[in-house]
């Protein structure tokens, strides 16, 4: 793998990475929509889900994409044309930039440097601007209200998300996601290193806070006030149709996948599975698949919660973030810091 990559020129490596990024976004989003949104929720509700297109409805997604592509791309007459049209791309750009920091194996990465998780947290906040653009640019009251609700929620839950990561950074002594994976692979739990040290064990509070805040960042139920269909139609997406609605839709599921991948890297050991040498070349091949398996597992949790819990009220949502998650995350940082120095 390394030998092959080093013989390629810069633009060849770059095009491989672009293709890998596209595959990672589209394939993951497609799998999540089919496995979780179409099938899992159907089984939870004692029905079969889509069965017609392809075996077990596996080509339903293609049918849906075809349907959206042939629909007219309507722009409301009073809307701000440019802002309205650009908004889905801003949201999707944020998702693609998030992907850049994810490692898939010892040599299979896009960038591997100190930026790591700090860059991920920074670019994830850019999507808020896209949501505000969509909400305002649509010139619709439902959209504007949805955009404002989304922003209030994303700002509130970005804080616990960031603070939950700090515990992992303290324990791994680096912000580089690749080195965080290696720290877990080579780590020991009080001298016992058979399974390494996946931070979900030592940082369980951080993991719980991260998953709750992630659910809110993804605006999935019980945190789906921005797109509450019984109040706001579909919030900031109300006026979108055709291709641009599809882009928002892909963005939603791709972001769920990428955030779950970040959680998998931070808390579940990323591309590493116990029992093998982390420097093994084999991981360049199976690493992305292992990571993908962990992503499917974590998104299963996300969608399980989504289809189980009722929607929170706006004041309950803000209280949960500011009065419970933030203090808990701060306490987690203090405890982690003290233990790091003492032990």
């Amino acid at each position, binding site marked *: 793998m390394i030998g092959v990559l080093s013989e390629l020129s810069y633009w060849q490596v770059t095009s491989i990475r672009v293709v890998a990024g596209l595959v990672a976004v589209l394939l993951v989003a497609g799998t999540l929509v089919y496995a979780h949104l179409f099938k899992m929720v159907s089984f939870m509700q004692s029905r079969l889900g889509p069965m017609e297109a392809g075996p077990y409805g596996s080509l339903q997604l293609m049918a849906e994409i075809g349907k959206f592509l042939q629909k007219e791309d309507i722009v409301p007459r009073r809307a701000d044309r440019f802002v309205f049209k650009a908004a889905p791309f801003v949201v999707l750009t944020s998702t693609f930039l998030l992907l850049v920091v994810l490692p898939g194996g010892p040599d299979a990465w896009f960038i591997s440097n100190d930026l790591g998780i*700090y860059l991920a947290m920074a670019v994830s906040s850019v999507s808020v*601007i896209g949501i505000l653009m969509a909400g305002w640019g649509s010139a619709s009251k439902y959209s*504007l209200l949805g955009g404002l609700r989304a*922003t*209030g929620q994303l700002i509130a839950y970005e804080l616990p998300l960031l603070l939950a990561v700090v515990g992992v950074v303290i324990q791994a002594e680096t912000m580089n996601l690749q080195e965080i994976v290696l720290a877990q692979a080579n780590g020991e739990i009080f001298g016992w290193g058979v399974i390494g040290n996946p931070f979900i064990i030592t940082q369980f509070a951080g993991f719980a806070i991260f998953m709750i805040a992630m659910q809110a960042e993804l605006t999935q139920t019980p945190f789906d006030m921005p797109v509450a269909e019984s109040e706001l139609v579909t919030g900031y997406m109300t006026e979108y149709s055709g291709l641009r609605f599809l882009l928002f839709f892909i963005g939603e599921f791709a972001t769920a996948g990428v955030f779950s991948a970040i959680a998998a890297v931070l808390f579940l050991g990323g591309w590493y599975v116990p029992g093998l040498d982390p420097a093994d070349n084999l991981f360049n091949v199976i690493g992305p698949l292992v990571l993908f398996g962990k992503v499917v597992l974590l998104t299963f949790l996300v969608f399980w919660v989504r289809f189980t819990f009722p929607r929170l009220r706006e004041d309950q949502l803000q209280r949960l973030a500011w009065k419970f998650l933030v203090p808990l995350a701060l306490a987690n940082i203090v405890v982690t810091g003290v233990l790091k120095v003492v032990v």
Partner: protein
Amino acid sequence: MTPAGVLAASAASGDLFVAQNVFFGVIALVMIVSAIRCVTTRNVVHAALWLVLVLAGAAAQFILLGSEFVAVTQVLVYIGAIIVLFLFGIMLTKASMGDDDSVAGEKRLMAGLVAVLLAVVMGIALVDSYSDTRVVIDEPQRFAAVSDAIFSQYIVAFEAVSVLLLAALIGAIVVARKE
């Protein structure tokens, strides 16, 4: 942030950073156009969105200089927090579609004067202080080096700023509370 710094570094190491210089020019052009549109547009939301481009351009320039930490902080703080706060405030209060002639009306002359004055003063100060200094970029600045500097050399300034922020925070709560 000057191109002279990049040029000096390339001269020092013996080769010319062609790509860096080309991209510096491109990004600088985008920043200048966006900055001009930001102050001339008659729509408040558009002005805030043009400002996003200016700040993103500044972050890109920091990346060209190898200051990754400053670049990411620029994105996190300015784009992710301050601009979002601007847009949020505008949309909560007054977010009319289309042009609004009351924006930047009679204060235009004064604003231009202040801007020119500021540019001249800051330009002279920067050239006077740093024209002999050369930025040498061997490798990207490490995060650990930044934190080492903050928590040893600049610890007093850092603590002073955090106390100031805390005071501002408490002040905001006191002002917002009605009793």
